[in-house]
């Protein structure tokens, strides 16, 4: 029984009904990863021992008629900024490779294991999550499965690309300024950035504490919703997850109904024709003719840039003092600049953030959901130093996230949906809802998927291509013993 083309819930159903064992599923995907990963450079460690131990537990529960989680037997992988017991938390850096393996799992990994998911490995990313392309000088660039000469988007590029390449049906990433939304869009899969503070990020290596949020990638909205629900819970860290779920996602709802949808207007001059038509396609599918203006989006992006630089610098100050040359140049330069920036800049940015949150809350008095581009254009070439947007030459690593950064400042939940066009690279649209209304994002996403207006594009490489296996260079980590 071939599960490589199946979505997460189909796999869980097959395992639950004993049509295939979790061990067989794990072996199937591990073999697929060994053969196909070298093309895409998604994985930095394949946690075979952990996957097989997870699978054994699930199979024992199935055999003993024990309690089965909603993701029983479903393979997944995590951005290598998530702690995994026995594995080094690289966070895309050379510096962290000298640290000891993590002593315990991140909260999200614990939750996924309780739901029955099988951890297959850790995934490549931008160094310290500080960028939008996942071009990593230490571990190589993540390659976009739809065109391996192009970037996957970042910083959770390995997570999005692993799902798009069919290496796993589910993956976890984190989003500080667009790091889930952007790679999901550029790789043609679904991604959910929950409300800031909704999910426990304990055990996830930080970039900027004011914005860091963990979330899932998947090939459809059903899988995304189940993974999101599996990770809900109260956290033990200072940044406590919000426990109250007032509006649980309801998978039975397949229509938009009376949800009021509007299109956001900001940075329009930077949007290329393809991204503009992707927005129009989704707005038309939802019957939306209304538009709203995001107030002071430019200043919101400026506040995001300042807060991220200052908070990121604080995280890495010790390494910046002792070994600055071990960072990638773009990461190092921005962190050093953040370390010497005046406190008044940071505090004014935080004050502006409060104002911006209040203004967006007023906007949601008249609309329920806002549509916005996920990126100004499709994936750029790996190594491109600039892209032309609105007649200006801009660096993709910094500017690809211009449509996602302002939304991060308000901490809103966002579902990124893929928009596919014949013969062209994928694009994405953000579905933005008020704080803690992930259910609205998912409801609109379900409706769009159900109508056929949007769907993910998975590059299935099959099991017969052995040429890639010979050049296989993925590290293997024994993990838990």
């Amino acid at each position, binding site marked *: 029984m071939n599960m490589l083309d199946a979505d997460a819930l189909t796999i869980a159903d097959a395992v639950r009904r004993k049509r295939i064992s979790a061990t067989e599923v794990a072996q199937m995907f591990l073999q697929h990863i060994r053969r196909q990963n070298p093309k895409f450079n998604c994985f930095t460690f394949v946690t075979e021992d952990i996957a097989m131990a997870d699978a054994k537990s699930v199979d024992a529960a199935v055999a003993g008629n024990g309690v089965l989680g909603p993701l029983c037997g479903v393979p997944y992988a995590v951005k290598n900024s998530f702690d995994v017991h026995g594995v080094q938390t690289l966070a895309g850096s050379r510096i962290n490779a000298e640290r000891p393996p993590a002593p315990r799992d991140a909260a999200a990994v614990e939750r996924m294991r309780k739901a029955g998911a099988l951890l297959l490995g850790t995934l490549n990313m931008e160094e310290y999550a500080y960028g939008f392309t996942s071009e990593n000088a230490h571990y190589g660039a993540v390659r976009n499965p739809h065109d391996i000469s192009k970037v996957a988007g970042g910083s959770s590029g390995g997570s999005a690309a692993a799902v798009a390449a069919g290496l796993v049906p589910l993956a976890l990433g984190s989003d500080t300024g667009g790091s889930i939304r952007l790679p999901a869009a550029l790789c043609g899969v679904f991604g959910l950035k929950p409300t800031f503070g909704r999910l426990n990020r304990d055990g996830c290596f930080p970039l900027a504490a004011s914005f860091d949020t963990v979330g899932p990638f998947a090939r459809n909205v059903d899988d995304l919703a189940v993974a999101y629900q599996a990770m809900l819970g109260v956290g033990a860290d200072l940044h406590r997850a919000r426990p109250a779920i007032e509006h649980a996602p309801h998978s039975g709802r397949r229509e938009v109904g009376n949800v009021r949808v509007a299109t956001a207007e900001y940075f329009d001059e930077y949007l290329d024709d393809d991204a503009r038509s992707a927005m129009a396609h989704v707005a038309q599918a939802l019957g939306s003719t209304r538009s709203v203006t995001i107030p*002071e989006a*430019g*200043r919101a*992006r*400026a*506040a995001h*840039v*300042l807060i991220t*630089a200052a908070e990121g610098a604080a995280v890495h*100050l010790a390494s*910046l*003092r002792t070994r*600055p*040359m071990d960072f990638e*140049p*773009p990461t*190092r*330069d*921005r962190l*050093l*600049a*953040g*370390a*010497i*920036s*005046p406190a*008044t*800049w940071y*505090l*004014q*940015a*935080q*004050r*502006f953030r*409060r*104002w911006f949150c*209040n203004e967006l809350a007023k906007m949601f008095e008249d609309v329920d959901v806002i549509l916005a581009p996920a990126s100004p254009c499709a994936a750029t070439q790996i190594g491109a130093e600039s892209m032309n947007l609105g007649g200006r030459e801009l660096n993709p690593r910094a500017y690809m996230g211009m449509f996602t950064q302002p939304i991060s400042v308000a901490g809103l939940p966002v579902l990124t949906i893929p928009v596919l066009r014949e013969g062209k690279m994928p694009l994405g649209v953000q579905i933005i809802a008020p704080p803690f209304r992930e259910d609205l994002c998912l409801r609109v996403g379900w409706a769009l998927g159900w109508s056929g207006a949007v769907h993910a594009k998975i590059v299935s490489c099959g099991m017969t291509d052995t040429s890639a296996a010979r050049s296989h260079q993925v590290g293997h980590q024994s993990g838990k013993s």
Partner: protein
Amino acid sequence: VITVAALCEQLAGDVMKALQVDPSSDEVIDRIAHAVGLAIPPDVRTGVVLAFDGLGKAAAEIMDFPLFDAESAPVIAP
């Protein structure tokens, strides 16, 4: 009258100016770096100054934005 935004731009500009005069000078950037225990390696100085200039421009966008006292910076409650 000089605005706070203009001062931000000036601060970033001063660093650039100092560099144009003498890239190894112990001017603004080095003094601030020293205060937080950092030394900017000479061969990465240009990149750091460009990044700092970018932050200065971002700060200039928000420093004069009118905010009320109620929108002050977050306070940690016990």
